[in-house]
């Protein structure tokens, strides 16, 4: 028999009401950024192919990268790379039991976001 307490137990399937700890945010963002990076492979291969063909192809690739929407896209992909890079380092350290204790885990997860924010300042400056 169910008590009223059990019946009214909230099911937090509303994504906006689920509060992930920062470590969880790093984790899901690692997955999302990884999928973005995988999807960006043809874009980079296309540019590599074009830029290595001839001086004219190199100039054409540069032109493509200077477009507004392409710059925006490149910034998003570079964010994905920066996040995947720093979160990846964190996961490798976790494998070595570094930063695995709760307090440190939260600290390291925050450090991932700080490091990627700093990296993005340089990367956005470089792209624009």
């Amino acid at each position, binding site marked *: 028999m169910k008590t009223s307490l059990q019946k009214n137990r909230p099911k937090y399937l509303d994504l906006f009401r689920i509060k992930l700890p920062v470590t969880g945010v790093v984790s899901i963002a690692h*997955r999302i950024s*990884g*999928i973005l*990076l*995988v999807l960006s*492979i*043809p874009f980079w*291969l296309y540019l*590599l*192919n074009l*830029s*290595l*063909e*001839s*001086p004219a192809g*190199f*100039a054409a690739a540069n032109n493509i990268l200077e477009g507004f929407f392409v710059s925006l896209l490149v910034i998003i992909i570079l964010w994905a790379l920066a996040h995947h*890079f720093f979160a*990846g*380092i964190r996961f*490798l350290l976790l*494998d070595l039991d570094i930063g695995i204790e709760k307090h440190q885990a939260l600290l390291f997860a925050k450090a991932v976001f700080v490091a990627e924010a700093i990296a993005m300042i340089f990367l956005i400056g470089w792209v624009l």
Partner: protein
Amino acid sequence: MSLLSGGIRPWAVQRLSAVFMLVAIVLFILKVVAGNIEDFTLWQQWMADPVWNVIIILFWLALFAHAWIGVRDAIMDYVHRDGLRFVVLSLFGFYLIAMLLWMMKIFFMVGHS
């Protein structure tokens, strides 16, 4: 390819490829900062340099292994119906193979065109 499917080996491949790519990315950044993508000649010379050519092809191979294991895990977490899972995994496999062939075409041809 048991190296890239179940058990401890994909786990190990995922970490080895990650460490290799981390180091390679730092090296790439140093080359870019040093101005090696400023003009076509420097860019092509860099990509065609035998040592770098090998590093970059290994980088792409590490990337494809890493992408396969990572996305395979994600697909297995979210796609539960057997038939659909098979289709999605196959499509992703073909996508990676196509990208692999394209990459090989580009980097085996550098400096020969």
